[in-house]
């Protein structure tokens, strides 16, 4: 009974988010066009600065393969994280903006089911936009890929999406505690772009900064996807990356869930639920 109840809550939240989402056509257009624009900016920046030698420059950092494909995969996965940062991360906070947070928390439904519903919709919503924008940029730039093990590529993409989702859930607990969630969410996007190596090989950074990058689940996802789709790597090659990605994703999700629960308790004790 409980599982059916939780499943219905998850579905209801996801359907509600979908119904609200489709009333904002400019947002939908933006989520499609922004990754395309950003990727093209990066591709032309690389081409203008490095010229035809960009492949060699990347290869020197261990990334043999098409540099355009390297950028597309980085930008698309980063866009997926950004979308989930706003959808899963803001799942609870958004209710505060709507003025419905107290009613959601007054209902007997599991908060985690509510968070899961919003995250699920976020994943689907961000996923199709990222996929279509990636196809558009590939068509526009003629990027080439080298996939030797399709299963490894699919597993890497799925786990990278799980990693991005886990980061969104991890941030949900932080966002619910503050009235400045919007600016914080914006501020988080740029360090993520930098530390995950979405636009350049992470090895170009000083070692100490690389450690920061490898504390972020998305970094492993990006690396696994690039290795399987640009360098023909198989599951055996990216296994350790995916294993670490999975562990970090579980840790991030558990942290987010614990934070949301803790934040609700703090807010109920202090009377912060209604504050906007």
């Amino acid at each position, binding site marked *: 009974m409980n599982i059916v*109840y939780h499943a*219905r*809550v998850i*579905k*209801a*939240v996801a*359907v*509600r988010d979908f*119904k*609200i989402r489709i*009333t*904002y056509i400019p947002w939908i257009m933006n989520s499609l066009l922004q990754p395309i624009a950003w990727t093209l900016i990066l591709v032309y920046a690389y081409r203008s600065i490095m010229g035809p030698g960009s492949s060699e420059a990347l290869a020197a950092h261990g990334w043999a393969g098409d540099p355009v494909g390297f950028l597309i995969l980085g930008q698309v996965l980063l866009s997926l994280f950004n979308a989930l940062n706003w959808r899963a991360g803001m799942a609870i906070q958004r209710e505060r903006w*709507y*003025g*419905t947070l*107290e*009613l*959601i*928390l*007054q*209902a*007997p*439904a599991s908060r985690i089911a*509510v968070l899961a519903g919003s995250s699920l919709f976020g994943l689907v919503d961000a996923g199709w936009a990222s996929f279509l924008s990636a196809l558009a940029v590939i068509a526009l730039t003629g990027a080439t890929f080298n996939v030797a093990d399709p299963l490894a590529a699919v597993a890497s993409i799925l786990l990278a999406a799980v990693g991005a989702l886990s980061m969104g859930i991890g941030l949900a607990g932080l966002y619910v505690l503050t009235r400045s969630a919007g600016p914080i969410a914006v501020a988080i996007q740029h360090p993520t772009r930098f530390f995950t190596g979405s636009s350049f090989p992470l090895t170009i950074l000083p070692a100490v900064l690389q450690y920061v990058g490898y504390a972020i689940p998305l970094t492993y996802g990006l690396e696994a996807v690039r290795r399987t789709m640009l360098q023909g790597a198989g599951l055996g090659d990216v296994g350790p990356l995916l294993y670490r990605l999975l562990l970090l994703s579980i840790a991030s999700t558990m942290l987010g869930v614990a934070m949301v629960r803790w934040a609700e*308790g703090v807010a*109920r*004790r*202090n*009377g912060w*639920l209604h504050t906007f």
Partner: protein
Amino acid sequence: MYTIEAEGLEKEYRIGLLSKRRVKALRGVSLRIQKGTLYSLLGPNGAGKTTLVKILATLLIPDAGWARVAGFDVAREAVEVRKRVGVVLGGERALYWRLTGWSNLWFFSQLYGIPPAEARRRIRELIELVGLQGWEHVRVENYSKGMKQRLHIARGLLNDPEVLLLDEPTIGLDPAAAREVRGLIRRIVAEGRTVLLTTHYMAEAEELSDRVGIISGGRIIAEGSPGEVKKIIGGRMVLVSLTGPPGEASRLAALLGARARSIDRVTTIEAVVEDEEEFIDKVLGEALRRGLRVRRVEVREPSLEEAFIKLTGGPR
């Protein structure tokens, strides 16, 4: 049998994250509400009404004291309380404006675990109860304030609650819409539910309530049926209408510790007094001395509003 019981509830808020400033919202509130009755909680702004409602709705944890709703402790058995309580918080928000009324109700019905077929039946019934037929598939952003408030009430009734907590349900509504909501509340009580209503509107409380409680400064300072509360303050209401030199009647009211209300050039001095004859003599004597003309003298039972003002020390 009491459906709502509270004993010694206390709640203090900290103002700001780092500030040491604190505001005591409740100072030992005790309350008992019988099953199937409507209890109105009256109080000036900041008296603690909403804090009390939120504690009973499990949205706030009290610092001290305890409360039970439908037999369950609001702090330790919050989920059981939530299953049995409907909450309607005042204001226009707290609905998804980009969704239709039906979609709003459907969403919340699923949060309460109502099976789909039953949810559809229940939503149809509630749409009819609150008179939103024909509007259920229109986005809420197109509703009037009164329609939104009726949708709020429908949402509060989705889980067929034993207890309905209504926090200022008629605030901001025009008289016709407020009247519709009051009619709806009457029907809800007639169904046997227990209703706790907070309101600023005394006439509303007087019209609807089995019992009223007056809360001020975080304490319940008077409680009983509307008639009993009016009697608590004792005395009779005296109203003397005067005309004459501008400002003179107001100065006279101040001198006698009474209230003055002016409409056009007529000022009415009003006070709840123990000895109405003595008060009238005083007013008439002073009025004569100040060149004021007496237009009307009225003596009657004080209204709930007058009792409220006397008990809470006047409007804030």
